[in-house]
């Protein structure tokens, strides 16, 4: 990994002369070969040139279609898991050969019942109309922000597993500014957002700095920083500065009214943070596709050695990417404390940072893809609560479906072979890895 190429430089910065730098580049070139793991996830599949294909085949082979199939397969598998613990299904399986229709009836019933409840809890139900959709958007807000942070890092070839820690730190700082300082209305919210975003950016920048300077692998550092952040929050919530006066449990005071995002639609929890998330999505799209910095990020992600040769300061780009990614996750943390929860607790980040990884992967690391993936997983999260109440299906099924979706999306050949869509099975299976090696290997 890059560790090796950078370590000599990190070891003795004063001794790296010009000749060493030349050797460094040579090393890096080889290092590039060894590093398809850092190929942006978005480029992992597809685009192996099917110009002469028919329109139909292009749709069938396209990423979007495979994503849809992946979601479908994951839902079916999740449904089977639900059905496998259903008592009626188990009973009717006992006399399957006598009356197979019974079994199929109960199987279908068990599979659909939970998903119908999930849908009703997240999008539409006859009693409340579309108001569950507002809850979905609320839950999706931090997911989208943090997902963007993960996706941006992916595009620059970095695995940001640390969204969780970045959210925790930003929520902590944002919340502190929200309940400890008392400022005039608009200014207060701005200060909260800025504090939170700076916190997230700093927590991300540590990773970038360590990666750029010492070659420490960002996956390890981010995982470890997640736990450091968690314990730090736990510690702070037990100090007088953060704990609610007169309360022994680790929970902060409520944020001032002037410090929270205004409500968008009365009667729902949907807040201004959602519009911020939309703006951030557009902003990241602009950054990646229209700005010089974004181009540099992508160049570093595609091929660090080539980017260096082309005059990109790879170290600076690495630090900057992680800082921006942390800042984006920071918006997610602010959305949690200043929008949805309005207090700081030990569980403020819930699973958002980890869900964000799956969101970014499902969105193929594109900004708008991440946005819609965030909405989808937000719907899962919001609907799961309703599902558990109505049908008793544990919320954990959402984790199963979510992770299956990502697994299948990451392996398009598997999905295609499930549906018998692999025309030149052997050829295609080989083409994908070659593409990966070709983009990752700097030759």
């Amino acid at each position, binding site marked *: 990994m890059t560790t090796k190429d950078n370590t*000599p430089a990190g070891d003795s910065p004063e001794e790296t002369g010009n000749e060493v730098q030349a050797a460094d580049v040579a090393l890096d070139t080889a290092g590039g070969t060894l590093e398809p793991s850092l190929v942006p996830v978005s480029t992992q599949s597809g685009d192996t040139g099917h110009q002469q294909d028919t329109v139909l085949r292009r749709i069938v082979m396209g990423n979007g279609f495979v994503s849809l199939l992946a979601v479908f397969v994951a839902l079916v598998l999740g449904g089977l898991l639900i059905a496998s613990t259903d008592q009626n299904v188990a009973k009717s399986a006992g006399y399957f050969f006598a009356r197979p229709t019974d079994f199929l009836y109960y199987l279908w019933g068990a599979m659909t019942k939970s998903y119908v409840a999930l849908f009703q809890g997240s999008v539409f139900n006859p009693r409340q109309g579309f108001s569950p959709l507002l809850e979905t958007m609320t839950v999706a807000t931090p997911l989208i922000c943090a997902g963007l942070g993960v996706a941006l890092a992916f595009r620059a070839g970095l695995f940001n597993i640390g969204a969780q820690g970045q959210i925790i730190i930003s929520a902590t700082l944002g919340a502190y500014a929200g309940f400890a300082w008392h400022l005039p209305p608009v200014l207060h919210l701005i200060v909260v957002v800025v504090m939170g975003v700076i916190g997230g950016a700093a927590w991300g920048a540590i990773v970038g700095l360590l990666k750029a300077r010492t070659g420490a692998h960002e996956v390890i550092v981010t995982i470890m920083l997640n736990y450091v952040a968690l314990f730090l929050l736990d510690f702070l919530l037990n100090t007088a500065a953060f704990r609610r006066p007169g309360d022994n449990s680790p929970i902060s005071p409520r944020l001032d009214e002037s410090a929270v995002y205004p409500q968008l639609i009365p009667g729902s929890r949907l807040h201004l943070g959602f519009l911020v998330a939309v703006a951030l999505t557009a902003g990241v799209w602009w950054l990646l596709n229209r700005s010089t910095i974004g181009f540099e990020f992508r160049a570093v992600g595609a091929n660090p050695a080539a980017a260096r040769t082309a005059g990109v300061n790879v170290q600076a780009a690495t630090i900057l990417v992680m800082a921006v990614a942390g800042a984006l996750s920071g918006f997610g943390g602010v959305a949690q404390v200043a929008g949805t929860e309005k207090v700081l607790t030990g569980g403020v980040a819930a699973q958002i940072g980890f869900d964000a990884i799956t969101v970014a992967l499902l969105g193929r690391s594109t900004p708008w893809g991440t946005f819609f993936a965030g909405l989808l997983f937000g719907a899962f999260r919001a609907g799961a609560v309703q599902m558990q109440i109505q049908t008793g299906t544990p919320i954990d099924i959402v984790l*199963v479906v979510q992770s299956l979706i990502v697994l299948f999306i990451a392996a398009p050949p598997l999905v295609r072979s499930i549906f018998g869509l692999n025309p030149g099975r052997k050829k295609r299976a080989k083409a994908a890895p070659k593409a990966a090696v070709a983009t990752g290997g700097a030759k």
Partner: protein
Amino acid sequence: MTTATASKPGAAGPTTAARPSLKVPVSLGVLSLVALVFFGFFGPSKTAEMKVSEQGDAIVLPALLIPGQAGGIVLAVLLLAMAAYSIYLWTKGERSPKWLPIVFAVVFVFALLVWIVAGAREPSISLAGLIAGSVTLAVPLVFGSLSGVLCERVGVVNIAIEGQLLGGAFTAALVATVTHNAYIGLLAAAAAGALVSMVLAVFSIKYLVNQIIVGVVLNVLVSGVTGFLFGTVMAPDKELFNTPPRLDILPIPVLSDIPLIGPILFEQSVAGYLMYVAVAVVWVGLFKTRWGLRVRAVGEHPQAADTLGINVNATRFWNVTLGGAIAGIGGAIFTLVTIDSFTKEISGGRGFIALAALIFGRWNPIGAFLASLLFGFAYNLQSILGIIGTPVPSQFMAMLPYLVTIFAVAGLVGKSRPPAASGIPYVKG
């Protein structure tokens, strides 16, 4: 492909080869000064009492009594001496021997312990209990990190240790309860860990999905599946599905009566003894056998290994599977030894600590074992600190393994280098 050869552990770089790095002497020096100032000059005035034997032991030794300040100064001087020796070696152009940082760490931790205990409300702890508890807590970590060693040495990054532990814990509880036999539960846990590993292997080797992604996602998947089944199967009928029998503690006669080390080494469950065996077997296997040479070749330079006729992907597949089985056994410890039933997320991030131990132990089975012991010690100290009431918040103790790992990967504590081909799928041709 020159990287693999150019980045051998010894060759720090073309120009730095002449002189060993200053990192070890400098960090030892700084740490021993810190010890002198904090543990010595500002040391607590109370006397720390460390009980060596429990009441009712066959051989009862008197407790160690160490005055806080004086003890701190003596230990700090010892540390300073070691740092000075390291610096002296550096001036002669020699590297510090490998044992030096380890001995230094042990003395430093002991000084830290004296400082904490003497400063506590109740300056008395049971040293035997502390160490024995640490080993108990370290057992799952050791199995987890051994799994990581086996996977990474063959070139597959295993972020899914957490999932393997959790899967093992769940399966062990379920199967042991249903069969009323803890040993069958232990075997089932190994099978479950291997199953998780096989998914990792298939996706990363056959479908060439990024190994880190598969690992992260597998953790979520296992957490979801076990959580779901816990909610639908175990929780409603605890008697039938979630009351596993414990693995018996099997003390070895005579040997287990030795003070201090007796209860640690010779009073374990089968899984505890298995841990020592596993560490030894993996170490010998990796470094002294033909199989190990092949495994390491695949992890360092798969092309070369392939040229020599080793089936790279098959080697990877079976190694990863074996690693999963080992981690599964580690997971079984939670439900068959430590706690007597499964609860959601019972592994509680221990898989990531195991990952940290593997890195801190520099991808070496024995290193991983020692690092796991250290992290187990930190865990145990953290809970004991809460009881005896020290000024150091327990959260900072809990952070320690993670911080240490960050320092380790950043190269501040020696140099940790993963196997060259770790994380990279191998495509023939």
